[in-house]
């Protein structure tokens, strides 16, 4: 058995999920909202890419990618504006329900537009090339994904810890009202957070769909769920946590399949989730909070 190939592919899946997981974790960190629509955004960005390339065949691929990323960020921004920001003062459950509604809407919309057919993601140069490393043959994206995820994580952590914007982000996540009093434009901070999340989802979708090229309206459900589990396992609210969690989930799932537990692969990640929640509810990197009485 070639354990290495499972390990590499597990890390790759983990890396791709990590980019989605960061989106979950950042939105949760700032709004305490599980953005159920994030997986769907991931899927929509893949679908967008297909339509852009199909409808504007004269566009060079890098421009198509750029256009897709911009559109995805814009959609992420719109979702926040229309579905979440009106509910800023509403109970958390309402916002979560709104998120479920958005994901329902996106899925149905894509299903209507594509007619429920699986569409093929266009060939992406470079990362779509097939290579062989350590005897493992696969697309370059597989080997690159974990690296890209780690690099983006480092950049993001730096932004959060060392820039003015990062500081206001941390402030908003700690206390809405106080940061507003301190002159932070919280709506802007939240919008930018969503934009970053959408950007990462778009990046992740290129890496992911360059390999798993068939996309239909349900393609976001599984990566979304897994990325979300990853975010919780890593400690929701923590960016490095999301990445570590995603890598763990990716590797565990791959190894499970390697060891003949394929029939249980869906059960395993959820079991891991529940074990983590019970043992350490705030995840590996999560902070413990005490309620003020």
């Amino acid at each position, binding site marked *: 058995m070639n354990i290495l190939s499972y390990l590499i592919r597990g890390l790759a899946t983990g890396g791709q999920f990590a980019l989605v997981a960061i989106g979950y974790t950042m939105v949760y960190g700032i709004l305490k909202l599980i953005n159920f629509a994030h997986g769907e955004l991931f899927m929509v960005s893949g679908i967008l890419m297909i339509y852009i390339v199909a409808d504007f065949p004269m566009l060079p691929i890098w421009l198509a990618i750029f256009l897709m990323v911009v559109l995805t960020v814009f959609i992420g921004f719109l979702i926040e504006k229309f579905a979440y920001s009106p*509910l800023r003062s509403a109970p958390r*459950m309402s916002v979560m329900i709104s998120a479920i509604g958005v994901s329902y809407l996106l899925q149905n919309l894509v299903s209507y537009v594509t007619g429920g057919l699986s569409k093929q993601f266009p060939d992406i140069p470079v990362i779509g090339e097939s290579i062989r490393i350590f005897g493992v043959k696969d697309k370059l994206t597989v080997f690159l994904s974990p690296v890209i995820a780690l690099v983006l994580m480092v950049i993001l952590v730096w932004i959060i810890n060392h820039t003015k914007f990062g500081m206001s982000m941390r402030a908003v996540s700690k206390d809405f009202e106080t940061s507003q009093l301190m002159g932070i434009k919280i709506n802007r901070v939240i919008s930018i957070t969503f934009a970053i999340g959408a950007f990462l989802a778009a990046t992740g979708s290129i890496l992911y769909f360059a390999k798993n090229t068939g996309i239909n309206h349900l393609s976001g459900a599984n990566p979304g769920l897994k990325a979300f589990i990853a975010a919780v396992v890593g400690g929701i609210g923590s960016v490095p946590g999301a990445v570590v969690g995603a890598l763990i989930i990716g590797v565990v799932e791959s190894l499970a399949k390697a060891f003949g537990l394929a029939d249980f692969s869906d059960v395993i990640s959820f079991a891991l989730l529940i074990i983590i929640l019970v043992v350490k509810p705030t995840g590996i990197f999560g902070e413990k909070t005490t309620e003020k009485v």
Partner: protein
Amino acid sequence: MWNQNKRTICNLLLVAALILTLVLIELLAPSTSMWFSVLRKVCTFALAAVSMNLLNGFTGLFSLGQAGFMLLGAYTYAILTIPVDMRSNVFRNYGDSLIRFQMPLVPALLLAGLIAAFFAFLIGLPVLRLKSDYLAIATLGFAEIVRGLVQLQNFGPVTNGPDPINMFTAPKNILVYAAISGISILIIVLIINSTYGRAFKAIRDDEIAAEAMGINLAHHKRLSFIISSFFCGIAGAMMAMCNTSVSSVSFTSAMTYQILLVVVIGGIGSISGSIIAAFIFYASSEWWLKFLDLETYTDAGAKIPLLGPGFRMVVFSILIMIIVLFFRQGIMGTREISVYDGILRIKNLFMKKSVKGGVKDE
């Protein structure tokens, strides 16, 4: 006190009117009418929504495990009520069924609820310590695990593996569904109005204060979770009945979200709201809006734009978003339907003499 009695009488009249309507539909509607399948589904999901409401709306525990408990109930019921001579046929891929007897409907229903409640008891111990979102995730995970396990071929002789189960007892009469659902909902209402119901609401309103008032959080949360799961299991059994076949693939998180949306549309914390919403939700999505899925041509032969497969769900999800965003309270908020108050309001509105008898307030 007198007002209270009047209210009760009015509400009883409303229930009687509802029952009468159902009886009339059952007797008079042509057998091919959509009323039957829609009302069966409405009864089922009204109970599912009310049981979710007990947990989410009245106890403030955000659980998303409904699909899992419904699956347990549906499978328990279906497996237990297949006639003995049909068993080898249904379980043909796995030799034969391990269970060699058939249960009557009512005990099977109760057992469906009990199995779901038992699992709720088991996972309630660790999971209910978790706070809001984490609880939601953990229960969601539980539901997925249950589905993942039931689908395994290894359990074939018991669960029929991934293959659907059919041939079990599935009554057609909508009054049966109304009775099961009605009695269950009545019990839930009685619980909510009892001293335990007040304790649940206290936990929802303020956990810390509730604990300081001597309410044992762990005990009461678990109680609510178990009760809710019990009725969820029964709703699952009803779903098996109205679908005449059970397949584990139906019990996805999408189903939980659907139930949640019903609760939200009806109003979180309103029993009558959940029931009305279940009716509107399923009647429109499966019946009234069905025409949106059909490619329709005008008499002149021109195609009406947009209509086509999948369009119904788009319209439907937009409607849901509108409700979630602009009518956050849902249809009923936390209020309950009261015919008496309705009459009073109408009276005040027109300042005329009250109209006697069946004014419906919906």
